[in-house]
Protein backbone atom coordinates (compact mmCIF):
# COMPACT_ATOMS: atom_id res chain seq x y z
CA UNK A 1 0.00 0.00 0.00
CA UNK A 2 2.83 2.36 0.92
CA UNK A 3 4.67 1.30 -2.23
CA UNK A 4 1.62 2.04 -4.37
CA UNK A 5 1.32 5.45 -2.71
CA UNK A 6 4.95 6.21 -3.45
CA UNK A 7 4.59 5.16 -7.07
CA UNK A 8 1.53 7.41 -7.40
CA UNK A 9 3.47 10.26 -5.84
CA UNK A 10 6.33 9.85 -8.31
CA UNK A 11 3.93 9.77 -11.26
CA UNK A 12 2.23 12.96 -10.07
CA UNK A 13 5.62 14.66 -9.66
CA UNK A 14 6.69 13.65 -13.17
CA UNK A 15 3.44 14.90 -14.69
CA UNK A 16 3.71 18.12 -12.67
CA UNK A 17 7.28 18.76 -13.82
CA UNK A 18 6.39 18.14 -17.47
CA UNK A 19 3.38 20.45 -17.25
CA UNK A 20 5.39 23.13 -15.44
CA UNK A 21 8.16 23.10 -18.05
CA UNK A 22 5.60 23.27 -20.88
CA UNK A 23 3.73 26.07 -19.06
CA UNK A 24 6.76 28.31 -18.50
CA UNK A 25 8.36 27.54 -21.88
CA UNK A 26 5.21 28.34 -23.83
CA UNK A 27 4.62 31.40 -21.62
CA UNK A 28 8.01 32.83 -22.56
CA UNK A 29 7.36 31.89 -26.19
CA UNK A 30 4.08 33.88 -26.21
CA UNK A 31 5.99 37.01 -25.24
CA UNK A 32 9.09 36.33 -27.33
CA UNK A 33 7.74 35.47 -30.80
CA UNK A 34 7.59 38.35 -33.27
CA UNK A 35 4.88 36.61 -35.31
CA UNK A 36 1.55 36.77 -33.41
CA UNK A 37 0.40 33.56 -35.08
CA UNK A 38 3.16 31.61 -33.34
CA UNK A 39 2.42 33.50 -30.12
CA UNK A 40 -1.20 32.37 -30.27
CA UNK A 41 -0.15 28.76 -30.93
CA UNK A 42 2.20 28.95 -27.92
CA UNK A 43 -0.69 30.26 -25.82
CA UNK A 44 -2.73 27.18 -26.81
CA UNK A 45 0.10 24.95 -25.49
CA UNK A 46 0.15 27.13 -22.37
CA UNK A 47 -3.59 26.67 -21.81
CA UNK A 48 -3.34 22.90 -22.34
CA UNK A 49 -0.56 22.52 -19.77
CA UNK A 50 -2.58 24.67 -17.37
CA UNK A 51 -5.46 22.22 -17.82
CA UNK A 52 -3.12 19.39 -16.77
CA UNK A 53 -2.20 21.33 -13.62
CA UNK A 54 -5.90 21.92 -12.90
CA UNK A 55 -6.47 18.15 -13.11
CA UNK A 56 -3.63 17.58 -10.62
CA UNK A 57 -5.39 20.05 -8.31
CA UNK A 58 -8.60 17.98 -8.75
CA UNK A 59 -10.45 20.75 -10.59
CA UNK A 60 -11.88 18.50 -13.29
CA UNK A 61 -14.71 20.74 -14.46
CA UNK A 62 -12.47 23.81 -14.70
CA UNK A 63 -9.91 21.80 -16.70
CA UNK A 64 -12.60 20.72 -19.17
CA UNK A 65 -13.94 24.27 -19.45
CA UNK A 66 -10.39 25.54 -19.96
CA UNK A 67 -9.79 23.24 -22.93
CA UNK A 68 -13.25 23.76 -24.48
CA UNK A 69 -13.76 27.48 -23.91
CA UNK A 70 -10.22 28.86 -23.90
CA UNK A 71 -8.12 26.61 -26.08
CA UNK A 72 -11.16 26.03 -28.30
CA UNK A 73 -13.37 29.08 -28.70
CA UNK A 74 -11.27 32.05 -27.54
CA UNK A 75 -8.10 31.00 -29.33
CA UNK A 76 -9.99 30.32 -32.57
CA UNK A 77 -11.20 33.92 -32.39
CA UNK A 78 -7.62 35.10 -31.83
CA UNK A 79 -6.29 33.10 -34.76
CA UNK A 80 -9.16 34.35 -36.94
CA UNK A 81 -8.30 38.00 -36.24
CA UNK A 82 -4.56 37.37 -36.75
CA UNK A 83 -5.30 35.72 -40.09
CA UNK A 84 -7.64 38.60 -40.99
CA UNK A 85 -4.95 41.19 -40.27
CA UNK A 86 -2.39 39.18 -42.24
CA UNK A 87 1.00 40.89 -42.57
CA UNK A 88 -0.17 43.95 -40.63
CA UNK A 89 -0.25 41.87 -37.44
CA UNK A 90 3.50 41.22 -37.46
CA UNK A 91 5.21 42.71 -34.43
CA UNK A 92 8.97 43.01 -34.84
CA UNK A 93 11.02 43.80 -31.78
CA UNK A 94 13.18 46.58 -33.20
CA UNK A 95 12.68 50.26 -32.49
CA UNK A 96 11.46 50.29 -28.91
CA UNK A 97 12.70 52.62 -26.21
CA UNK A 98 15.46 50.66 -24.52
CA UNK A 99 15.17 52.63 -21.25
CA UNK A 100 11.47 51.83 -20.89
CA UNK A 101 12.13 48.20 -21.74
CA UNK A 102 14.86 47.88 -19.10
CA UNK A 103 12.65 49.54 -16.50
CA UNK A 104 9.79 47.18 -17.36
CA UNK A 105 11.97 44.10 -16.93
CA UNK A 106 13.40 45.38 -13.64
CA UNK A 107 9.88 46.11 -12.34
CA UNK A 108 8.58 42.65 -13.25
CA UNK A 109 11.66 40.99 -11.71
CA UNK A 110 11.02 42.97 -8.53
CA UNK A 111 7.43 41.70 -8.38
CA UNK A 112 8.67 38.13 -8.94
CA UNK A 113 11.19 38.31 -6.09
CA UNK A 114 8.68 39.94 -3.77
CA UNK A 115 5.94 37.34 -4.28
CA UNK A 116 8.32 34.35 -4.18
CA UNK A 117 9.75 35.57 -0.87
CA UNK A 118 6.24 35.86 0.58
CA UNK A 119 5.28 32.38 -0.66
CA UNK A 120 8.46 30.76 0.69
CA UNK A 121 7.84 32.35 4.08
CA UNK A 122 4.25 31.07 4.13
CA UNK A 123 5.14 27.62 2.77
CA UNK A 124 6.48 26.51 6.16
CA UNK A 125 3.47 27.90 8.00
CA UNK A 126 -0.10 28.03 6.72
CA UNK A 127 0.67 26.57 3.28
CA UNK A 128 2.40 23.41 4.57
CA UNK A 129 -0.66 21.19 5.04
CA UNK A 130 -3.59 21.04 2.61
CA UNK A 131 -7.14 20.07 3.48
CA UNK A 132 -8.40 16.54 2.86
CA UNK A 133 -10.97 16.40 0.07
CA UNK A 134 -13.52 13.87 -1.09
CA UNK A 135 -13.51 12.43 -4.60
CA UNK A 136 -16.44 14.65 -5.65
CA UNK A 137 -14.38 17.82 -5.13
CA UNK A 138 -14.32 19.83 -8.35
CA UNK A 139 -16.65 17.49 -10.23
CA UNK A 140 -19.30 19.01 -12.54
CA UNK A 141 -21.99 18.04 -10.01
CA UNK A 142 -20.31 19.88 -7.15
CA UNK A 143 -19.59 22.97 -9.28
CA UNK A 144 -23.11 23.01 -10.67
CA UNK A 145 -24.64 22.76 -7.21
CA UNK A 146 -22.49 25.65 -5.99
CA UNK A 147 -23.31 27.75 -9.04
CA UNK A 148 -27.06 27.25 -8.69
CA UNK A 149 -27.20 27.72 -4.91
CA UNK A 150 -24.55 29.87 -3.22
CA UNK A 151 -23.27 31.68 -6.30
CA UNK A 152 -26.48 32.11 -8.30
CA UNK A 153 -26.12 35.89 -8.60
CA UNK A 154 -22.52 35.58 -9.81
CA UNK A 155 -23.70 33.02 -12.36
CA UNK A 156 -26.38 35.36 -13.71
CA UNK A 157 -24.02 38.35 -13.74
CA UNK A 158 -21.47 36.42 -15.83
CA UNK A 159 -24.15 35.78 -18.44
CA UNK A 160 -24.94 39.50 -18.55
CA UNK A 161 -21.20 40.27 -18.93
CA UNK A 162 -21.00 37.87 -21.87
CA UNK A 163 -24.05 39.51 -23.46
CA UNK A 164 -22.55 42.98 -23.04
CA UNK A 165 -19.26 41.74 -24.50
CA UNK A 166 -21.00 40.27 -27.52
CA UNK A 167 -23.03 43.44 -28.13
CA UNK A 168 -19.88 45.55 -27.73
CA UNK A 169 -18.01 43.42 -30.25
CA UNK A 170 -20.81 43.74 -32.80
CA UNK A 171 -21.04 47.52 -32.30
CA UNK A 172 -17.26 47.95 -32.67
CA UNK A 173 -17.27 45.90 -35.86
CA UNK A 174 -20.32 47.48 -37.46
CA UNK A 175 -19.34 51.04 -36.49
CA UNK A 176 -15.99 50.69 -38.23
CA UNK A 177 -17.71 49.24 -41.28
CA UNK A 178 -20.23 52.04 -41.47
CA UNK A 179 -17.48 54.65 -41.44
CA UNK A 180 -15.44 52.80 -44.03
CA UNK A 181 -18.56 52.37 -46.16
CA UNK A 182 -19.48 56.04 -45.81
CA UNK A 183 -16.01 57.01 -46.99
CA UNK A 184 -16.12 54.61 -49.92
CA UNK A 185 -19.66 55.12 -51.19
CA UNK A 186 -20.92 58.24 -49.48
CA UNK A 187 -23.85 56.40 -47.88
CA UNK A 188 -24.58 54.10 -44.99
CA UNK A 189 -24.54 50.38 -45.56
CA UNK A 190 -27.55 48.52 -44.26
CA UNK A 191 -26.16 45.00 -44.09
CA UNK A 192 -26.62 43.16 -40.80
CA UNK A 193 -23.79 43.56 -38.32
CA UNK A 194 -23.05 39.85 -38.27
CA UNK A 195 -21.83 40.08 -41.84
CA UNK A 196 -19.08 42.58 -41.03
CA UNK A 197 -16.38 40.00 -40.39
CA UNK A 198 -17.16 38.11 -43.57
CA UNK A 199 -16.14 40.86 -45.96
CA UNK A 200 -12.77 40.58 -47.70
CA UNK A 201 -10.01 42.49 -45.90
CA UNK A 202 -8.67 45.76 -47.18
CA UNK A 203 -5.38 45.34 -48.91
CA UNK A 204 -2.49 45.07 -46.48
CA UNK A 205 -0.60 48.29 -45.98
Amino acid at each position, binding site marked *: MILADQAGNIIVWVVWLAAAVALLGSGFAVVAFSNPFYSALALIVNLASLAVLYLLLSAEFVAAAQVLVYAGAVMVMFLFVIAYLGGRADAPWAGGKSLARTAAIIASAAILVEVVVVISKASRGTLSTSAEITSSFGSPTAIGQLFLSDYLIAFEVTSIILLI*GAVGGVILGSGARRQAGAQDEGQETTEPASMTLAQPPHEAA
Partner: protein
Amino acid sequence: MLGPSVAAYLVLSTVLFVTGIAGVLVRRSPLIVLLALELMLNAGNLALIAFARHSGNAAGQIFALAVMVVAAAEVVVGLGLIVAMSRRKMELDVDKLSQLKG
Protein backbone atom coordinates in the same frame (compact mmCIF):
# COMPACT_ATOMS: atom_id res chain seq x y z
CA MET B 1 -1.96 15.66 -1.31
CA LEU B 2 0.12 13.76 -3.85
CA GLY B 3 2.90 15.54 -5.67
CA PRO B 4 4.19 19.04 -4.95
CA SER B 5 2.62 21.25 -2.32
CA VAL B 6 0.45 24.28 -2.99
CA ALA B 7 3.48 26.59 -2.67
CA ALA B 8 5.03 25.05 -5.80
CA TYR B 9 1.86 25.81 -7.79
CA LEU B 10 1.88 29.37 -6.44
CA VAL B 11 5.50 29.93 -7.48
CA LEU B 12 4.63 28.59 -10.93
CA SER B 13 1.69 30.96 -11.20
CA THR B 14 3.87 33.88 -10.06
CA VAL B 15 6.46 33.21 -12.75
CA LEU B 16 3.69 32.99 -15.37
CA PHE B 17 2.16 36.25 -14.11
CA VAL B 18 5.50 38.05 -14.27
CA THR B 19 6.00 36.78 -17.83
CA GLY B 20 2.65 38.33 -18.68
CA ILE B 21 3.59 41.64 -17.02
CA ALA B 22 6.84 41.77 -18.96
CA GLY B 23 4.96 41.03 -22.17
CA VAL B 24 2.41 43.79 -21.59
CA LEU B 25 5.09 46.33 -20.71
CA VAL B 26 7.68 45.46 -23.34
CA ARG B 27 5.77 44.46 -26.47
CA ARG B 28 4.09 47.10 -28.62
CA SER B 29 1.74 45.07 -30.81
CA PRO B 30 -1.79 45.21 -29.34
CA LEU B 31 -2.34 41.58 -30.34
CA ILE B 32 0.64 40.37 -28.31
CA VAL B 33 -0.36 42.64 -25.43
CA LEU B 34 -3.75 40.89 -25.40
CA LEU B 35 -2.08 37.47 -25.46
CA ALA B 36 0.16 38.48 -22.53
CA LEU B 37 -2.94 39.68 -20.68
CA GLU B 38 -4.38 36.20 -21.14
CA LEU B 39 -1.20 34.82 -19.55
CA MET B 40 -1.74 37.03 -16.51
CA LEU B 41 -5.41 36.06 -16.16
CA ASN B 42 -4.49 32.38 -16.39
CA ALA B 43 -1.78 32.79 -13.76
CA GLY B 44 -4.43 34.26 -11.47
CA ASN B 45 -6.69 31.31 -12.25
CA LEU B 46 -3.94 28.85 -11.35
CA ALA B 47 -3.43 30.56 -7.99
CA LEU B 48 -7.19 30.55 -7.33
CA ILE B 49 -7.49 26.84 -8.07
CA ALA B 50 -4.39 26.02 -6.01
CA PHE B 51 -5.91 27.86 -3.05
CA ALA B 52 -9.25 26.11 -3.61
CA ARG B 53 -7.46 22.75 -3.36
CA HIS B 54 -5.48 23.95 -0.35
CA SER B 55 -8.50 25.02 1.66
CA GLY B 56 -10.77 22.24 0.38
CA ASN B 57 -13.36 24.85 -0.65
CA ALA B 58 -14.62 24.81 -4.24
CA ALA B 59 -15.48 28.54 -4.19
CA GLY B 60 -12.07 29.25 -5.71
CA GLN B 61 -13.00 27.17 -8.74
CA ILE B 62 -16.22 29.17 -9.14
CA PHE B 63 -14.08 32.31 -9.06
CA ALA B 64 -11.77 30.86 -11.72
CA LEU B 65 -14.74 30.14 -13.99
CA ALA B 66 -15.95 33.72 -13.54
CA VAL B 67 -12.47 34.96 -14.50
CA MET B 68 -12.66 32.82 -17.66
CA VAL B 69 -15.94 34.52 -18.62
CA VAL B 70 -14.47 37.97 -18.03
CA ALA B 71 -11.42 37.01 -20.10
CA ALA B 72 -13.64 35.88 -22.97
CA ALA B 73 -15.57 39.17 -22.90
CA GLU B 74 -12.31 41.12 -22.75
CA VAL B 75 -10.95 39.25 -25.77
CA VAL B 76 -14.12 40.00 -27.77
CA VAL B 77 -13.90 43.73 -27.08
CA GLY B 78 -10.11 43.89 -27.48
CA LEU B 79 -10.11 42.07 -30.80
CA GLY B 80 -13.04 44.23 -31.95
CA LEU B 81 -10.96 47.32 -31.20
CA ILE B 82 -7.96 45.91 -33.07
CA VAL B 83 -10.10 45.09 -36.12
CA ALA B 84 -11.63 48.59 -35.99
CA MET B 85 -8.15 50.13 -35.81
CA SER B 86 -6.95 48.15 -38.77
CA ARG B 87 -10.07 49.12 -40.77
CA ARG B 88 -9.21 52.77 -40.23
CA LYS B 89 -5.72 51.98 -41.47
CA MET B 90 -4.14 53.03 -38.18
CA GLU B 91 -0.75 51.69 -37.21
CA LEU B 92 -0.98 48.70 -34.84
CA ASP B 93 1.44 50.02 -32.21
CA VAL B 94 0.36 50.79 -28.65
CA ASP B 95 3.09 53.45 -28.29
CA LYS B 96 1.60 55.46 -31.16
CA LEU B 97 -2.05 54.93 -30.20
CA SER B 98 -2.18 57.51 -27.43
CA GLN B 99 -5.51 59.22 -28.17
CA LEU B 100 -9.00 57.89 -27.60
CA LYS B 101 -10.30 59.95 -30.52
CA GLY B 102 -9.09 58.30 -33.71
